[in-house]
Structures are given as structure tokens and as C-alpha cells.
């Protein structure tokens, strides 16, 4: 799985946040725009792009985008 592409796919779920602010190591909970709807958009993106089902616990147990990436990678 391509990390850069994954980050790009996550970035596309945000509307207001400056893309340069979001890196693989970013703790997404600290982003102002992060809310349950963005979380759902990320889940939907992962379903669409990678054919993987991530759960609420997967998201809650993740701190950074890298953490989500690893979960998706383990399920692909």
C-alpha cells in the first residue's frame, strides 16, 4: 500500500483544513475540523479505495493517520 496515496485520500475528506497541516504523524483528534462526520468519510473512503471495513474501535484506537494506515494495511 502506498503511504503517500493513503494520506492524499485522507486529505480529500477535509474541506477547511490546510493540506500542509496534515501529515502521517498528525494526531487527527487535534485538528479543529475533525468530527464524527469526517471519521465516517474516512471509513467510506477506505471502503471504496481499499475494500476494507474499519470499525469505530479502529478509529478510536488510532491517534495518527499512520495508525489508521497500519490498520488498513493489516486488513487488506
Amino acid at each position, binding site marked *: 500500500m502506498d503511504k503517500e496515496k493513503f494520506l492524499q485520500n485522507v486529505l480529500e475528506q477535509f474541506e477547511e483544513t490546510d493540506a500542509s497541516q496534515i501529515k502521517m504523524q498528525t494526531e487527527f483528534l487535534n485538528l479543529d475540523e475533525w*468530527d*464524527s*462526520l469526517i*471519521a*465516517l468519510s474516512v*471509513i*467510506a473512503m477506505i*471502503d*471504496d479505495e481499499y475494500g476494507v*471495513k*474499519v*470499525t*469505530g*474501535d479502529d*478509529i478510536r484506537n488510532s491517534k495518527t493517520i499512520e495508525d489508521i494506515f497500519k490498520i488498513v494495511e493489516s486488513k487488506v
Partner: protein
Amino acid sequence: MALLNIQNVSIRGVSAALPKNVEYVKDYHLFSENEAKKFSASTGIYERRLANKTTTASDLCFDATEKLLDNLKWGRKDIDCLIFVTQTPDYVLPSTSCILQNRLNLSKEAVVFDISLGCSGWIYGLMTISNLLNTGTFKKGLLLVGDTITKTCSFEDKSTYPLFGDAGTATALEFDENSMGLKFHLSADGSGADAIHIPHGGYRYQTSKKSFQNEIFGNGITRKPLNLALEGMNVFSFGISKAPQSIKKLIDHFGINFDAVNYFIFHQANFFMNEKIRKKLKIPEDKVPYTLSEYGNTSCATIPLTIVDRLAKNTLNSKLEIIACGFGVGLSWGSVWFNLDNIVCPEVIEI
């Protein structure tokens, strides 16, 4: 795979009843003005109907049934079977269907029973009653589907309270050798049982003092173990994968002409999720009616309620091909293809 084709049954009518009492999302005390706007924009829900303390799901279904039978001019004693689908029955026991048999003045020889399912309930109920009618031993059947699910929600839980509304519906079916039939796909996965559940009040965890104690989860979620708990992200993840799969299986297995289907009626979960499902299946917007804005998620009642509210005028003198799909609590889901040919469909009743 649970795929079945029932040849000799037709839907003759559908009706729905709603409580008069309206609640608006913008008035919900846990939402700021901005939060309420955001919530409505994403869920598609702006207002809901809430039953008062004394009105049950069976009361709503009773009124919907009376209206439907009157319009169909069906005699009460001609009803051979009645199924009541609900997760908010009048009592733990007896079955509410028995109470309805008496209230509707049906024959004591009618077969009546309850089914406990939510979001997928109309599909499962339709499958069950169609099977009862398919051999022709029974000629006429009533499928009553409704919930007062708002009574299970904590007023202090913004992840459930503003989503749900109450409604009762009735669907009349008849043995019909000239029918186009009904085709089903059905599925279940209990590994997701806690995604939508009420922890206490059954017999795994009987009602106790603890059942009435508030638990604070933070972020606008406070509820008791007797309240409905919703694990939104898991339900979402489930819905966007299983609902399209089910419809695809139905279409592929029975060789249904996708383009000939006039309407796809989804369980009204929320707009964001339903639109993901619609887009995955590449269905044009005008083939997917919504009633979320006015009624929210009314549990098992959403599909027949949407038929009555959005398609009533179209059904008067025409023939419609429909695919409906229900998905949620259980987890349980299913799809059905059927025809609506000049059915009786009175306007939504308010009580």
C-alpha cells in the same frame, strides 16, 4: 444463500400513521445552532414525529390498518393471517399481534404472531407473510410494521435522540396466481449485535437498579442501560458494504433488469449513509426517494412509510417495479424486488 422467489402473492395496499407531535432538530437542547445545521445537512433529518406517552406502535399500526381495510373494502373476517413486526411491543408478553387480532375484530381462526426486527423488519415480515400466502391456503394477509423507537432513546444522547421518529404502517397482501411475484435476499450477522442495542431489560441483563443509572460517555452522550445505544461508525461501515452487496446479489441471482426498476427504497438510516449506498450502486437520484427530512429514522417503518408518503400518487393508475433494502439492528439486512400494480395507498394518517 438466502435467495427466494415467491410467485403467487401481490401487494394490494400500503398505509401509514404518524403521531401529530413534531420535534425539530434545531430545537434540540444539546445542539448549538451550528451543530444542528451540520447534523441536518449530513443526516438529512430536520424534524421527526414523536408518539406521546400513551400511544404505542400497535396504536399507530391499528389506525393505519383500519384506514387501509376500509379503502380496500376488505372484510375483517376475510383476513387469514396477521404479522406484527416491532421492537417496541405493548407488553413483554403476550404477543401484540394477539391484541391486534381482537382490536381489529379479525377471525379467531386467523394466524397471528409477532416478529422482533428493526431496520430490516419490513423485508423479513414481507418474506414471512408471502410464504404463508403463497400456497393459496390463506388468501388475505396483513403485515403491520411499526415502532415507537423514540421511547427507547435517552433525551441526553445526541447520537440517538435527534435521529429517530415514530411511525406505524400496514401492508395488505393477497394470494394471486397472476402475480409478478416477490424476490428476496436475506442475511444476518450477530457478531455485530452490540452495534445497535438496549443492554438491559431483557433476560440476559434483567431490569435492576443499575438499569436506571445514567452513564456519562462524554461528547453529549449520557444514557441508561435501558436506553438504545448506537455505535454509529460500526453501523455506517456495515451499511455501506452490506446494503449494496445485498441488492447486487438480488439483481444478479434473479437477472433483474436494473434499469427497469422505477424506485429503490432504502431503509431511511441517514442521508450521508444512504447516499453512499446509492452512489455505490450508481442509481440515479430521482429513483431514490427520501422521507428523512420530515420523519427521521422510524426503525422498521421507514420503507412502507416512504412508499406511502412519496409514491402514493404514482401508484394510483400505474405499475411500478421496486427494489427495497433494509439494514441495521441485528445485524440483519435484506432486499426485495416487487411490483406495485394499481395498489390502494391512502394518504398518511396523523393521530
